[in-house]
């Protein structure tokens, strides 16, 4: 699959600066320039970064972490997703700060290098397996050797090795008439990389998805003008599988998929002009807050942070301003099956970054 190759070859150019307070030499060391694989994780880059700064570090034990404009970066989120999420306007190179001391344990879960990342990866893979097949047998039945091979293929960005090893997982791909139409060139490769066995075919199965949402309350000319994300509280993270609904003659699009995850927040664009208070779906669990500094809406136990400067926000009339998957902004009409098969990460989760715009309303008639 061509697209999968591009995804695996995708990388973010990083310019990594050492945290000022850890610079003990003059002149300070220049930043390290590293090309970080999109599907990789920041802690895996430490062996490449450390040599640049080793000579200047103060004495002590290394506890490495990264920040972007002051925001500590969650190391278990793939590098490409972090970039798509935190840089509305892609910054190249991406300027990050590395710290070797003072791990913010109150903000980040601990990381002990490669082992922690591998543990996180394998468990995400098991979680995906559970979502897709209802249990973790596929991963559990993989030999330790194969599991290691799989992990190494991800660490090294070796797609060939990955496809070889992951075919033993029998997860299969999403199959519908749109997969076949669009992926005509991959028909050949599908025959050679092994059969998608009975147990592996996902017909109307659930798709593991990690959805990251941030919201704005006005339109911006440039992404550069968007308020920056300075706290993880400003991002709503939803871990919820998407079920592909098949309807005769109708394509289940990316837009359909997103609507299924956020029914209470998304309205068809055509309805926005008519009435800004109309809600989709029957659940109207809307709780309005009048906190001016950070407005929140709660629905079904989940809160979506709304960055509004002045007025309070209402729900139900959100507009999708941006959808980013693997650095791509796909058209919402794209068949969701194609997105899943080509843009998912190696642990079989599809990571989607979404920016929603909630309109500002001055008067509330609730």
């Amino acid at each position, binding site marked *: 699959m061509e697209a999968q190759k591009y995804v695996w070859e995708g990388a973010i150019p990083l310019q990594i600066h050492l945290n000022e307070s850890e610079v003990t030499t003059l002149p300070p060391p220049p930043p390290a320039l590293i090309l970080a694989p999109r599907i990789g994780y920041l802690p895996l880059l430490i062996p490449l970064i450390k040599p640049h700064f080793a000579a200047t570090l103060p004495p002590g034990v290394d506890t490495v972490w990264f920040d972007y404009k002051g925001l500590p970066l*969650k190391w278990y989120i793939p590098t490409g997703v972090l970039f798509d999420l935190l840089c509305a306007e892609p910054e190249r190179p991406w300027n990050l700060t590395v710290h070797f001391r003072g791990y913010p344990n109150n903000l980040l*879960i601990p990381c002990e290098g490669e082992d922690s990342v591998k543990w*996180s990866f394998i468990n*995400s893979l098991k979680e995906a397996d*559970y979502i897709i097949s209802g249990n*973790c047998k596929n991963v559990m039945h993989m030999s330790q050797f194969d599991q290691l091979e799989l992990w190494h293929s991800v660490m090294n960005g070796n797609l060939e090795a990955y496809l070889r090893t992951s075919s033993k997982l029998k997860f299969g791909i999403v199959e519908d008439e749109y997969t076949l139409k669009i992926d005509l060139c991959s028909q050949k490769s599908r025959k050679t990389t092994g059969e998608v066995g009975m147990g592996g075919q996902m017909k109307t199965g659930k798709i593991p998805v990690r959805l990251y949402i941030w919201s704005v309350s006005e339109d911006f000319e440039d992404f550069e003008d968007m308020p920056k994300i300075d706290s993880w509280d400003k991002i709503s993270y939803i871990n919820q599988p998407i079920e592909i609904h098949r309807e005769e003659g109708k394509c289940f699009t990316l837009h359909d998929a997103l609507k299924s995850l956020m029914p209470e927040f998304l309205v068809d664009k055509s309805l926005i002009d008519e009435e800004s208070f109309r809600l989709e779906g029957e659940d109207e669990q809307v*709780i309005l*807050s009048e906190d001016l500094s950070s407005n*929140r809406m709660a629905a079904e136990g989940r809160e979506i942070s709304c960055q509004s400067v002045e007025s309070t926000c209402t729900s139900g009339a959100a507009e999708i301003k941006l959808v980013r998957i693997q650095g791509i902004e796909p058209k919402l009409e794209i068949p969701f099956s194609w997105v899943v098969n080509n843009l998912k990460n190696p642990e079989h989760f599809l990571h989607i970054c979404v920016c929603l715009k909630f309109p500002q309303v001055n008067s509330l008639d609730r």
Partner: protein
Amino acid sequence: MASVTESPSSVRKVIVQLKATADAPILKQNKFKIPGTDKFAKVIDFLRRQLHRETVFVYINSAFSPNPDELVIDLFNNFGVDGKLLVNYACSMAWG
């Protein structure tokens, strides 16, 4: 189903059932409610305190270890069984 006038503090709660695995001690109270908006880390910290151990291995449905940053409500929605979130705990790695 919350009504519009309900205060934000009445967030949906999730029932968590703790189950000891292998050599782990069985807790007197092994079932409790936690707000859905809490992170799974809260369950892990609770276990650490109750078991007086720094390292605890925690699994959902004896299957996998979720990321501590995951929201309890998401884990319940995705993996809950019989209205509960089943959490297995061990003092050594049970399912590697």
